[in-house]
């Protein structure tokens, strides 16, 4: 039974005690699409995946996955999906091969077929050489690849990847994405992936949803999202009080959305390189000295900032905040 869309979230909501982890979100993912969920840690990405993969029950709303309702038909959903959770889930005491065969058994795949698929998948993720080694001897990248193979053993129509590249080096990250791409191209698998790496979302996803504080702020192709930012983004630093500079800049025609973001004055303008001399002029007349200027075509970072009002990159620094948030959520779950 194929519905119109692979995934359809309808007012999907999850509340942990006082915290609204996911707040009435609605979106659709088409078959064959790589759909990215982009947001900082604690934005509700993992909670969304957990609801879509029937691990956690929504507090409110529901979602159709592969045409089945995650609340009413969780068993049906589980048969058509593959999941690669954020944490490593393979059994360290078993070998890579045994892990794959175990998961195959849970899907009720006959042994002979399971062996064929396991061999095929190990080949795909380039782990054939390590098949008979215990998983505890694997490196992080190898474990992640094994997880992906485990998520594919049932030939899912829809694959969920929760931060598949988290904590991996750049080279392994690129390799993981190339496997994901292979899946899409060769098997036509629909892929739902969460990430907080902007470049990855930009480069590999057909469409992206930006999520922050449990809410979807924008959905679209990377290109469309960048277009909505409109024109170039200029970042200025001035000697002295930036507030005064902002006032001056706001009076200039053609400049929009002037504000201070993390010590920089940020604004948008149609053609940054042409506007720059004029801006210098106006500011120096007002007695304000520019110390630095950067003109950027909008990147996903700008897109993210546009919608959320803060940079995603800074989220990486505030680990304490993230950990504190996680602790709260965990306590609330008990």
């Amino acid at each position, binding site marked *: 039974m194929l519905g119109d869309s692979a995934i359809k979230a309808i007012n999907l909501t999850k509340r942990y005690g006082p915290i609204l982890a996911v707040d009435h979100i609605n979106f659709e993912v088409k078959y064959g699409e790589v759909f990215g969920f982009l947001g900082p840690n604690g934005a509700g990405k993992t909670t969304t995946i957990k609801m879509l993969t029937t691990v*956690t029950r929504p507090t409110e709303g529901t979602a159709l996955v592969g045409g089945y309702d995650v609340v009413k038909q969780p068993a049906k959903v589980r048969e058509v999906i593959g999941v690669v959770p954020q944490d490593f*889930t393979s*059994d360290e005491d078993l070998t890579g091969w045994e892990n794959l065969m175990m998961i195959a058994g849970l899907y009720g795949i006959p042994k002979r077929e399971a062996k064929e698929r396991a061999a095929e998948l190990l080949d795909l993720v380039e782990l054939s050489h390590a098949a008979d080694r215990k998983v505890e001897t694997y490196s992080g990248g190898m474990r992640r690849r094994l997880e992906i193979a485990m998520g594919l053993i049932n030939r899912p129509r829809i694959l969920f990847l929760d931060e598949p590249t988290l904590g991996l080096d750049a080279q392994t990250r690129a390799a993981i994405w190339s496997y994901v791409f292979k899946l899409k191209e060769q098997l036509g698998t629909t892929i739902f992936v969460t990430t907080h790496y902007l470049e990855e979302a930009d480069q590999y996803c057909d469409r992206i949803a930006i999520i922050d504080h449990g809410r979807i702020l924008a959905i679209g192709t990377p290109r469309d999202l960048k277009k909505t930012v409109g024109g170039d983004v200029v970042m200025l630093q001035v000697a002295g009080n930036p507030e005064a500079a902002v006032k001056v800049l706001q009076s200039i025609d053609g400049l929009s959305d002037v504000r201070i973001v993390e010590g920089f004055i940020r604004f948008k303008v149609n053609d940054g390189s042409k506007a720059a001399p004029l801006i210098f002029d106006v500011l120096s007349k007002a007695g304000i000295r520019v110390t630095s200027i950067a003109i950027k075509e909008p990147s996903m970072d700008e897109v993210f900032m546009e919608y959320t009002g803060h940079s995603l990159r800074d989220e990486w620094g505030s680990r304490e905040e993230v950990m504190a948030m996680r602790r709260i959520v965990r306590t609330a779950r008990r």
Partner: protein
Amino acid sequence: MASNPLHGLWTLTNRELKKWYKAPVVLIVTLIQPIVWLAFFGKSMNMASIFTNGSINIPGLNIPKQIIDQIAQAYLKSTFGTTDYFSFLAASMVAQITFFTAMNSGMSIVWDRRLGVLDKLLTTPVPRGSIIMGKVLNSVLRSLAQATIVLIIATLLGMKFNTSLTPLGFALSIVGVYAALTLLALGFSALYLTLALRSTNWQSQMAIINLLNMPLMFASNSFYPIKMMPWWLRPVAYINPLTYVNDITRGLLLGISAFSIPMDFFYLALFAMIFSTMGIVLSWRFLSEG
């Protein structure tokens, strides 16, 4: 696909068993405790020699040693049902190893949760009840294997079986003992797994194990008959399933039973059924979060 729920159950049981037979160290370690009880305690706490060590001499009374021995035998027989305390103790050790193995099954679900394995299992079509029952089944099979080893060691150390048993009778008795142990392992591992369903903390699980372990051991007929207990302890012993397994083991292997063996089985079957059902039902509710 996955229309047969038993398929996943066996896969999960096999996974647990694999870890066990691939790491014999675990097996050896779990065997140490009953062996210590048997070899150290059982061999030293020699009731017969307490009474018959020949040094009893009550001034003024010249009781012949023979009579003292007879009195001692009579006391032992009336207390333990046999003059051979070692065999009395050894028979209870098979239940004890089963009990210990079952207790630890709760730990494995805590680890599965911590290591993320459980998260993965929950996304597969395997029934939630199978996740629990796979662990229960593993614990049953492990218990039976370990009980066999304990029984062999006990025999080597001098456990004496009911001499009136024919070879066939003995074989049937062993089957009966295994049946009792299966029920005990089913009930206790389901109970401990249920207690661990939501836990992510192995320390608290250990605490629960230690809290229940000693009291259940001592509030049973494992080391002494119930009639020797103070009145307030007896009700606990009568509820304790260990008591009934011990009664079956002693009844079948030694020929000394305090209750009726069919009633013992009935009670154990009830115990196993209630806690297995509870485990399966609650796992549907509580295994996944939220």
